[in-house]
């Protein structure tokens, strides 16, 4: 009995390890390639904006970072809850691996927003609905990371983190719709599902290229961190010991 359970539980992380190892170089290639294309388009093809001058070029990192900050939170909460409900350890590890990347993109959205707000609004920061709810998102990420690190029993920590991530998920639609629900200084949604884009095609394309680059980056860095977490947690597993032995031989 114990043998079959062990085979089942270790199978998933080891298969993930092989698949992610194969995908990683391609993901990095995509991230760098799309970023270079997006930067070229954003700085050399897209024209200067009539009202905002060249300060608007911050949009090419600001909007993709803000999108990633929200998407990664929902993905993190989804995996955390799945790992809790289905007792799937790899899902919980992926959730933990997502948190620092999501927090970084949240910080970047706030940072680039401040640097964009100063020349266009005349202030680095206002306590309006969009900015405040994005700041709360950063605190949710940091709170999740602090919580799961502060509990020694890893599975109990995973469960507590899942609960926090789930409750905090309510903040994501609040961020997204904040510009509709309240009068904010922040402008409305850049891209709408129902209306034609209001920005020039070259500007839009540059932003979408950067978004693809940020997606590829997120997959790559989250895979890297998940692989590290798998090794940290599954060091008793035979396949991890075999892997370490192979790697040690290659180094020598």
């Amino acid at each position, binding site marked *: 009995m114990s043998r079959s359970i062990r085979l089942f539980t270790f199978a998933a992380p080891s298969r993930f390890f092989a698949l992610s190892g194969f995908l990683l170089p391609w993901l990095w290639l995509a991230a760098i390639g799309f970023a270079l294309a997006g930067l070229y388009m954003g*700085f*050399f093809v897209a*024209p*200067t904006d009539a009202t905002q*001058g*060249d*300060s608007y*070029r*911050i949009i090419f*990192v*600001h909007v993709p*970072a803000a999108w990633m900050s929200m998407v990664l939170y929902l993905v993190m909460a989804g995996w955390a809850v799945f790992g809790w409900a289905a007792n799937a350890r790899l899902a919980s590890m992926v959730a933990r691996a997502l948190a*620092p*990347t999501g927090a*970084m993109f949240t*910080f*970047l959205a706030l*940072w*680039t927003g401040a*640097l*964009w707000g*100063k*020349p266009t609004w005349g202030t680095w920061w206002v306590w309006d609905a969009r900015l405040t709810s994005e700041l709360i998102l950063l605190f949710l990420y940091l709170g999740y990371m602090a919580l799961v690190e502060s509990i020694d029993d890893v599975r109990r920590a995973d469960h507590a983190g899942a609960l926090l991530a789930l409750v905090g998920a309510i903040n994501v639609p609040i961020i997204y719709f904040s510009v509709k629900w309240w009068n904010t200084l922040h402008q409305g949604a850049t891209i709408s599902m129902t209306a034609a884009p209001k920005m020039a095609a070259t500007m839009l394309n540059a932003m979408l290229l950067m978004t693809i680059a940020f997606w590829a*980056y997120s997959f*790559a*860095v989250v895979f*890297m*961190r998940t*692989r*590290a*977490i798998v*090794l*940290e947690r599954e*060091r008793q597993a035979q396949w*991890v*010991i075999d*892997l*370490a*032995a192979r*790697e*040690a031989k290659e180094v020598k």
Partner: protein
Amino acid sequence: MNWGSLSEFLAMGGYGLYVWGSYGVVLVLMVAEPLLARHRYRQALGQVGQSIEQGD
């Protein structure tokens, strides 16, 4: 092409501080994060290797 010279490019129409202040921090963090993840991976791998040598 939007820029006549390198200095025009760097000036960003007078918004150089804001534009490069944004892109600079994005670049630093998005280079640092994968390096930290790689460091963590190698450290974890090394610890598995150590526990093999100690024979447990």
